[in-house]
């Protein structure tokens, strides 16, 4: 009680203080980003990817499936900013539509894998006991196997396709999300504000909903960044191997695999889709690393921080 009384006294005292003029919100929000140029680049790439994934089909100059026998293997030109494919399709339009496929896949994995994983992780971190054991042990067993082996086994059972891929990557996201959120909820759980809430008679459910959840929310962003990175690579890899999207679908993995047939003569057919995947994944990785650094100085050690 004594500490609370003292804090109240301090708060009371502060009211009479002259507060220094606060910088505008946008300046304060930008500050950590400007100190982390790598993270800032990541943020721009991630936002750019999401925007292009949404508006891509409207700004694409051509129908990505439209064949043009007169315009096969064209180089870079004003009419075709990234040239054309072996079938005379406009590469730039295909890349734009491919962004949408990757974005949709990422969102599906996030909604069906990461979001429930987040809930499980908070439950397992805060309540512990058997639920914690059950989730963590299954997560370990899952992570012990290469995901590609699990995926090939699922494909042997139900057949190839984006759906099978999505199920496996979503389960991976579920365990990944639960591990991350478990770790941060465990930390939050022992903080004073939880103790204070319990002291004033908040129920466990109230504490989770009104105190733990808002405090671990920033880490959800870290998780979402890495879920997108993993999902985009997974979809592209499996489509490249012929296990994901149908041939002909505008998608980065499919385009790369189709381009590789002619790649020795026309390397750009491989390089454009490959660059698209690499840049977007790099963006999400840089963004996730930077967010983690800003949120938790103890976890520092990745890109762009000054110790």
């Amino acid at each position, binding site marked *: 009680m004594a500490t609370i009384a003292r804090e109240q006294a301090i708060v009371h005292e502060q009211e009479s203080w002259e507060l220094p003029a606060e910088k505008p919100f946008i300046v304060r929000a930008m500050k950590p980003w400007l100190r982390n140029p790598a993270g800032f680049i990541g943020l721009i790439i991630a936002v750019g990817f999401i925007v292009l994934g949404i508006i891509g089909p409207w700004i694409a100059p051509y129908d990505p499936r439209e064949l043009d026998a007169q315009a096969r293997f064209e180089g870079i030109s004003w009419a075709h900013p990234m040239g054309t494919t072996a079938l005379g399709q406009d590469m730039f339009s295909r890349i734009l539509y491919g962004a949408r496929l990757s974005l949709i896949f990422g969102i599906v994995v996030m909604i069906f894998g990461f979001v429930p994983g987040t809930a499980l992780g908070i439950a397992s971190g805060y309540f512990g006991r058997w639920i914690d054991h059950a989730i963590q042990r299954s997560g370990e067993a899952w992570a012990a196997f290469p995901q590609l082996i699990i995926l090939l086994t699922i494909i042997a059972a139900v057949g190839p396709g984006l759906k099978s891929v999505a199920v496996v990557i979503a389960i991976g996201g579920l365990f990944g999300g639960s591990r991350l959120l478990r770790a941060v909820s465990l930390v939050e759980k022992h903080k004073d504000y939880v103790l204070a809430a319990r002291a004033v008679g908040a129920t466990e459910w109230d504490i989770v909903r009104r105190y733990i959840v808002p405090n671990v929310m920033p880490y959800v962003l870290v998780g979402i960044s890495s879920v997108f990175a993993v999902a985009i690579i997974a979809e592209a*890899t499996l489509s490249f191997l012929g296990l994901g999207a149908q041939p002909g679908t505008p998608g980065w993995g499919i385009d*790369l695999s189709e381009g590789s047939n002619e*790649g020795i003569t026309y390397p750009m057919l491989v390089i454009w889709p490959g660059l698209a995947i690499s840049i977007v994944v790099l963006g999400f990785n840089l963004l996730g690393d930077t967010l983690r650094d800003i949120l938790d100085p103890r976890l520092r050690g990745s890109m762009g921080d000054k110790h």
Partner: protein
Amino acid sequence: MLRYALRRLIWLPIILFGVSAVVFVMLRVLPGQSPAEIIAGQGATPEQIEALEEQLGLNEPIWDQYRVWVTDLLRGDFGEEFYSQKSIKDEFIRRFPPSFQIVMMSLVIGTVLGIGFGVISAIFRNRSPDYVVRFGAVAFSSIPEFFMLTLLIVVPAYLWQYSQPVGGYVPFYEDPWTNMRLMLPPAIILGIAGSAGLMRLTRTTMLEVLQSDYVRTAKAKGLRQQTVLFSHALRNAGTPIVTAVGTAFIAVFGGSIIVEQVLSIQGLGQWFFFASLQRDLTVVQFLVVYSAFVVVVMNLIVDLSYGYIDPRVRYS
């Protein structure tokens, strides 16, 4: 330690039993085309499919199928491929060497690069080598393996008319040059891809260890920098690093499937890939149990090496 190892080994058959049962049931219960339909091809009559299912033993009750499969496995009879009727054992012996070589070479390359660059990054903390290494780690973990492997085929051929050999595995002891031309470049790519996590972990652990009192003491009493670095610091950072080598192994193990597929190397990964597309259930379930065996043994090796690196570790 011996008792600990033995106790862990008792778990091995239990885990393998569990994995085999789960996979066996999953492959037969989940909805999907029957393997007999795929083998019979399009336009086969239901009677033909029925006859094939009968022949493959897929009509028996699932428990009987499982019992037969497991007793055969224990007797050393791994069964036959659905399609070619080839013996799975012979096929395994033929396909094992290239896969083993690619996984081991990538693991060694990845471990050396990961630990090496991690130590460099820690020594030059917040100076340019550190930034270069850290950016490299993020960049290389962002480039998908299949893209790097495609570039390996495409770029030298386009620029220098050098073609990366594809397929045609020759054992190292028969023709080292041909073998290395095929295996070394993809092993480097796979190794780099697997080393990023290891590098980060080595860096963080080394940073912690380098600030500790015993490292300061070692420096103060005038030991050479290499001695301080490798026998004092790195050894104490060893336990987490070995764990990360285990994780890198899982990555490389999965990545070898992509390598074999892109470079058409006739290894286990390529076999797994085609078997799962063709729903060759006997091959898939055999390879899953084999992978589980490899993963469990690898984990055991990692756990046992803790005691070797850090004699304070007590097994119980």
